[in-house]
């Protein structure tokens, strides 16, 4: 799966979780997305884990700076590289 396909899936997750249309880019950060806060972040990460059938180990996703880095972490986990 290439980055664009990840973005597409993440767009769906974010839009469904935040109850508004969300268009993400690799450079998007939490500040850029209305409604992405401490409460919704937990729901977002749980949805991402479910969608990609992964489990973020401690110390991984907390350090992601933007959507691009989140995708890199997802890819690594999918490839069993963590």
């Amino acid at each position, binding site marked *: 799966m290439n980055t664009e396909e990840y973005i597409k899936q993440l767009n769906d997750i974010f839009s469904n979780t935040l109850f*508004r249309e969300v268009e993400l880019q690799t450079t998007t950060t939490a500040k850029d997305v209305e409604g992405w806060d401490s*409460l919704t972040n937990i729901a977002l990460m749980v949805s991402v884990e479910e969608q990609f059938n992964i489990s973020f180990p401690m110390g991984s996703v907390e350090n992601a700076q933007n959507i691009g880095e989140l995708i890199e972490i997802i890819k690594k986990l999918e490839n069993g590289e963590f």
Partner: protein
Amino acid sequence: MKENSSSSDHHELIEKINSKKLSDIIQVYAQKSKLSEGIDKNGLRKVKVAIIGSYTFSPLDRILEVKALKWGLEIEILLGDFDSYHSEILNSESKLYKFDPEFVFIFPSHRLSNNQDGINKSAEEVTNQVTSNISQLSSICSTLHSNLTSNIFVANFIHKYERGVGSIRNYLPGSSSRYVEQCNSTLVDQLPKGVKVFDLNYLSQRIGLENAYDYKGWYVSKQIGSMLLQMSIAEEISFEINKSLNSMKKCLVCDLDNTLWGGVIGDDGLEGIDIGNTSAKGEAFKDFQNYIKSLKELGVILAVCSKNQIEAAQLPFKDHPEMVLRLDDFVSFKANWQPKSENIKEIAEEIGIGVDSLVFIDDNPAEIEIVNQYAPEVSTIYLGNNVSDYKAKLEDSGYFEPRALTSEDARKTSLYQQEVKRKELKSKFTDITAYLSSLEMQMTIQPFSHVDVPRISQLINKSNQFNLTTIRRTEAEVLSLMSDESYIGFTVRLSDKFSDHGLISICILKIQESKLEVETLVMSCRVLERQVEHEIHNHIVRIGLERKCSELNALYLPTKKNALVKDLYKKLGYEIVSDTVDRTMYGMDLDNHKTFETQIKVDNNLVLSAI
């Protein structure tokens, strides 16, 4: 939820608020501003609530805002800083007092009930330790109670989820489970009158300890427990607030068919209805009647409001051998074909109590809706179609939950509390110095060492608030600084009797002839208000004197996030040397240096020998 919206929308919304699913809560939160007007038929009541303690209370605050809507409450929340409730309570200038809350919920650290390696302790040792820990907590609650007129709640402690020593835990006074139990019972005994226990322990048991813990959440963001536990906490906080604001209801008005028995008496007759131990349903209805009877014994007035012929409606009460409730249990009995809203108003008038002290229960949503529409002051409970849930629905409404102990219980408790208070006075502290002293803090100061470099670099690069210059350095830069003779760096570790905070501060000094300049000073906000900065200053002075310097300089570079330490150097006794918008240089003459007495025991032998 405007008035013209259907009742099914309203039920759906209430279901979402009651939901334990995060997605439902988020959905309600997203629409909250639109919903708040119409969600409660009598308008929302605004309440100011402070939540303080040893945890991060976000997103608990958001969940609480949603859960409170169920009770028609609009909550304005103040969150205490992580693990700062002592200083927030002891400092009369703190944001807590400025906020002037109506309710304060304190969640003390679970470290207080954590008895590590305690399995070999004797019962006496355990009692002494528990008494000492809990009396500290109760005395800080006393201080808060005497400073504020708010309703104050203190969370008790939850059991551990791990097996620990296994089933022999029951035999060892120092086992984790018995330790927690003793903490909880001591808390009840020692809390000042007027401060209530928030029963976190019960909430954790209700959902199960396995579901209550979330270690990842604790380590990553200092959450108080799993999302499920946070849902329960938010529900319980709303519940307690609602209970405090509204007195206990006085009268329970019951429907009959499919509420007190299964079936329809007018169609099925005396032999056809389900009541009593001959059928599963009948048994459940009998238990529900037993529960209602117990409410009567608590002082609740009972009444009937049913669409029925009066003769048919009264028949089971007179002639069915399995009925628990009898006609003389009811003060008013309405069985006719009038709208129920009218009947209920008449009941209130007959008994001589306000319509707003009545609770109406029915299995038929249409009847509930009519009462909601035409007698909105009456509280209603829709029982649903499953009799095994009826009791829980009535109980969870909180309408008939006792608000306080009976006067006899209260008297006994107060005598006991007076006794406890006398004993406690000796150990009581009301000022911050005594509190800090009781923490038995130990500090270790060391020069930078290779093994600490990752943590040093992390503190330098992640700290924003207690960071005087926000000069970032990579690990490589830290390493090169260590071999540069014009720099002196030291690390600070802090532990107290509850926990080891680890490496919490670093300082980098630059030495130029007779001047010593504080170039970087960073501290973890976990140990604010602990006098750590005073000891760091004392140490900087020591280094200055050791190196025969005549002057100390210290730099403050303001950022958006470090206003916290804007006046730090002034408070430490420095004078301003030069001051511009983006840079303040402070100075102190080492011949007239100032040092501080603190409650911290410092171990710095290592450093002085290294210089």
